[in-house]
C-alpha cells in the first residue's frame, strides 16, 4: 500500500528511485579512478618529453592505450555524475537546470568519445 496521495503521484513529487544508481556509480568510478589517475600522473611525470614522437610511442603501447581509454571513460562518467549534483544543488530554476544538465551530458559524451577515438587512432597507428 502506498501512503502517497494521488495528487503527489500525479505531480511526481518524491524520489525518482534512481538515486541509489547514481550514488553507486559515483562510488564505483571513484574506486576505479584511484589507481587509474595515479597511474596517469606518474606516467606523465615519467615521460622523458612531450614531443610528438615520444607521446605517440607511449600511447601506442597496448597497456597504455587500454589504461588511457579506461581513464577517459571512467573520468568522464565520474565528472558527469559530479557536476550533475552541483548543478542540481545550485540551479534552482527547473528549466535552466534541465537545459544545463542536458548540455553537460552532451559535453561529457563528446569528451568520452573524443578521448577514446584519439587514443585508438594513435594506438592503431593513425597519427604518424
Amino acid at each position: 500500500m502506498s501512503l502517497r496521495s494521488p495528487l503527489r503521484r500525479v505531480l511526481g513529487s518524491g524520489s525518482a528511485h534512481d538515486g541509489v544508481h547514481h550514488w553507486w556509480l559515483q562510488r564505483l568510478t571513484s574506486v576505479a579512478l584511484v589507481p587509474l589517475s595515479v597511474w596517469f600522473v606518474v606516467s606523465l611525470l615519467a615521460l622523458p618529453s612531450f614531443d610528438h614522437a615520444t607521446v605517440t610511442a607511449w600511447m601506442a603501447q597496448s597497456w597504455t592505450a587500454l589504461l588511457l581509454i579506461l581513464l577517459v571513460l571512467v573520468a568522464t562518467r565520474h565528472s558527469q555524475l559530479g557536476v550533475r549534483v552541483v548543478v542540481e544543488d545550485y540551479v534552482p530554476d527547473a528549466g535552466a537546470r534541465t537545459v544545463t544538465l542536458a548540455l553537460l551530458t552532451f559535453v561529457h559524451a563528446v569528451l568520452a568519445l573524443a578521448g577514446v577515438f584519439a587514443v585508438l587512432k594513435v594506438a592503431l597507428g593513425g597519427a604518424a
Partner: protein
Amino acid sequence: MPARPLSPHLSVYKMSRYTLATSIFNRFTGVGLSVGLLLLVYWLMSVAGGAESQARATRLLSLPPMKLVYAGLVVAFCYHLVAGIRHLVWDTGRGLERAQSRRSAWLVIAVSAALTLVVGYCALVLRGHA
C-alpha cells in the same frame, strides 16, 4: 520553488569550519578537474591529429597563464584524490564520529599538501616543466 528548505541547507546547517571547508573544497576541486578533463581530451585529440596539430596545441598549452592552471590542477588532483578516499572510508561506516572526522579532515589537508609538494617537485625540479 517550494516553501520548504531544500538541500543544500547552507543557511540552516550549523557547520563548524573544518567540515564546511573540506566539503566545499572537494566539490570545488572536482569541478576544476572536470575542466582539466577538457584540457586532457583536447591534448589527446591534438596528438591524434599528427605532429603539426600537436605542435599547435602545445603552443596554446604552454602559454604562461597555463602554468597557473596546471598548478591549480595539481592541487585539485591531490586534494580530490585524498578527500575522495576519506569519503570512501566514510561509506564503509567508519570514521563518522565527530572527533574522528575532525582528525581525518586535518589528515586530508596534511596528506594532500604533502602529495602536492611531491608532484610539484617531480614536475618542476626533476622534469624541469617550469
